[in-house]
């Protein structure tokens, strides 16, 4: 059944604020609960709220098991009246935002703390991979155990075969992101990356090479969702939520992934926002591998299917470029702290639109697009989502 975009209620009166990043570490001996606790503490400290004021809590974490959000309420001493556990990996941040926004809008909660956090012990990445999902156990992990590198290698290879993308195209995105990351104090990758170094890097799972891969690490990201009038009264800088979309398991009959759920819902996203692709000042894509950023450019409408290689060749992607992209360096340069990776772009976008981003700023940024992607259950990422955010007037 065709849906009418106008049928959806706007997010009028709801804002996101208090972007928090707990600086990442390659390995951590601390638990996921420790990282979640650091993020909440920072959120409370910045906002001046007390922990008991947080009446809504949304959590995403791969390494918190066997706990879920409910166990963390007791662990952290929260008594929320609205609680959500969002196990959606790279889609977690935007999905937390849209759920929390509706809860605040409906009055079910006043202050929703949204947290994505994971630890990274020396062996936790392998353990997460081998038990990631039933399909991964049955049909992925026994096949060379290259993990997501191998799965995305197949997607990348197919995309190159079909649409003529080259390693130089992927490299251009990676190099620009590294430039953006150089001013971010907590980015794990601190050295400038050249295209030559990108091309000369060692192969991991052909055609994926070292600098196409994110670095698994420990870290936490968080933000707060509340009413606009509350934020104003408290004097908190904040961003408005113009539109969001979410879609899971789109296009199941594509033999190999060449598009995500954005392609189903992008029209609605722009209609709800009352904007078009030309209106955005910067874009934060989910960049677990550069080919996925290209899929997002296409599926969100910045160019047509298969046109991302040309799009990349005709733009520059640094914060002062023609298409500012992953303005803090993305996961490729700052690291992938598990589910916090699904928050990174959103937290950075809130920072850009409130002039609090830790690194370089996009000049005169008023509208930002954040996109999420996650959960490679078998051969493709299942979850996709996006949000259009605007600087408060």
């Amino acid at each position, binding site marked *: 059944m065709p849906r009418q975009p106008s049928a959806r209620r706007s997010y009028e009166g709801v804002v996101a604020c208090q972007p928090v990043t707990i600086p990442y570490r390659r390995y951590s001996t601390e638990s996921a609960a420790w990282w979640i606790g650091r993020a909440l503490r920072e959120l409370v400290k910045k906002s001046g709220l007390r922990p008991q004021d947080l009446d809504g809590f949304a959590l995403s974490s791969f390494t918190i098991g066997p706990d879920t959000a409910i166990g963390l309420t007791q662990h952290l001493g929260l008594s929320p009246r609205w609680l959500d556990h969002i196990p959606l990996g790279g889609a977690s941040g935007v999905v937390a935002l849209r759920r929390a926004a509706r809860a605040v809008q409906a009055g079910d909660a006043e202050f929703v703390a949204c947290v994505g956090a994971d630890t990274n012990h020396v062996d936790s*990445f*392998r353990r997460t*991979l*081998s038990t990631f999902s*039933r*399909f991964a*156990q*049955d*049909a*992925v*992990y*026994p*096949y*060379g*155990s*290259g*993990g997501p*590198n*191998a*799965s995305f*290698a*197949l*997607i990348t*290879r*197919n995309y190159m*075969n079909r649409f003529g993308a080259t390693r130089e195209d992927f490299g251009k995105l990676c190099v620009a992101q590294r430039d953006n990351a150089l001013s971010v104090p907590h980015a794990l990758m601190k050295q400038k990356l050249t295209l030559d170094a990108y091309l000369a890097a*060692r*192969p*991991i*799972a*052909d*055609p*994926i090479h070292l600098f196409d891969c994110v670095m698994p690490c420990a870290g936490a990201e968080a933000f707060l969702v509340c009413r606009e009038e509350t934020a104003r009264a408290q004097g908190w800088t904040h961003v408005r939520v113009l539109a969001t979309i979410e879609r899971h398991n789109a296009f*199941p009959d594509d*033999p*190999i992934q060449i598009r995500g759920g954005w392609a189903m819902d992008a029209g609605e996203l722009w209609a709800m926002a009352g904007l078009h692709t030309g209106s955005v000042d910067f874009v934060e894509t989910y960049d677990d591998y550069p080919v996925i950023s290209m899929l997002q450019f296409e599926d969100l409408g910045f160019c047509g299917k298969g046109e991302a290689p040309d799009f990349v060749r005709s733009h520059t992607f640094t914060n002062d470029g023609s298409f500012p992209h992953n303005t803090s360096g993305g996961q490729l340069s700052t690291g992938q702290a598990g589910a916090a990776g699904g928050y990174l772009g959103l937290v950075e976008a809130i920072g850009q639109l409130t002039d609090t981003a830790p690194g370089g700023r996009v000049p005169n940024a008023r509208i930002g697009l954040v996109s999420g992607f996650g959960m490679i259950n*078998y*051969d493709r990422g299942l979850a996709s989502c996006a949000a259009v955010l605007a600087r408060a007037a």
Partner: protein
Amino acid sequence: MSEPLARPRRKNPLARTRLPLLPQGARSRTAHGLTAAAAEGRFALQVCADCGHVLYPPRDACPRCLSAKLPFKNIDPNGRLIAETTVRISTDRYFHERMPWRIGTVQLDAGPAIVAHLHGDTVEGERVRLTLKLDKSGSAVMFALPAQETPHMQADRHWREMTCDPQYRRVLISDGRNAVGQAMAKAFAEAGASTVFVGIADPWKPFPGEAELRNIAPIEVVPLDVTDTASVAELAAQNGGRIDILVNTAEHVRPGGIIERGNLSVAREEIDIRYFGMMRLAQAFGPALRFRGADGVNSATAFVNLLSVHALMNWPAYGASSAAEAACLSASQCLRAELRPGGVKVLNAFFGPLETEWYQTVPPPKLAPAALARAVVAALQDGLEDIFVGDIAQDVRERLNTNPKALERELGSH
């Protein structure tokens, strides 16, 4: 193009033996439907009984119509390799020491896209044939072969992880006095085994076929009596670390049921030779087999049981003997679990009446020992776990699937 397999060098006795590691063998219960097909060399996927949708990975509800009726059915294994990658870094210990490792996405003509291991002669963009193999963990994996045979394709490094090819391996045939043991020795010699040890109890006693056997180059006659624990232990102490495939050919087929026998003496012999014989072999040679599961080109790879198909359903004409076979079948399942940590397979070859003396009065069709031996070698080359050799074995297998009670009555009606 695959390179022919190089003959392994003599092992340095001081070098450490690399311990076997396994790929992850855990599967959902439903996914073991693939293991059942792989064990017999079939290619089967779930097919929705309500809407005909062909599914992969295995599921418990049809993603097209939500039906729960999802039986595994044999499916056209042909498709196209649409993307490939060479994995060079692995978090998994088994694959880590086998890098680089190629995998790819195969789109089957029957529908689903399947991530599979790739034979070295497969080419991206071209046609391939998918097979289901048991990997070293004993669970099923998808393995893509080129659509047409290629030279030396058996020698492919990834393929050999899935198979138990006798080439350049050392084989022990436990009893060479009987026709099956001799046929087996010849078949393994022809399949390129580097040594075929053939056990003979009381070697000073001559036996038919002895001269011919001793004349075949890789065959080496060794003293072995499976009813004598000391004899089995002695051979294992001497040669246990040099045996890669063990084939138990000891047999003791005698007609007669339970009541007619009148006493236990023949049944005791059957149990001693067949069941205890297998146990003695397993206890003496099993530890070394399991330890040497990753010991290079000629790693330990298989324990072969020859079982009457009447292990699965008693044939009262040979009723007491059938019961001894059933004991061996049960023991083989235990042995599988015990050898699996070494990546060593247990092949059960089920057969009907043979063209041998103790089945003299049984009407045809009967199975020639040479045909049984060829089937065992082929099954090892293919890495199978259960084979049904000959018309009778196939027939019993089919009828067991359809109506086991009818089979019981019919076998008992003569």
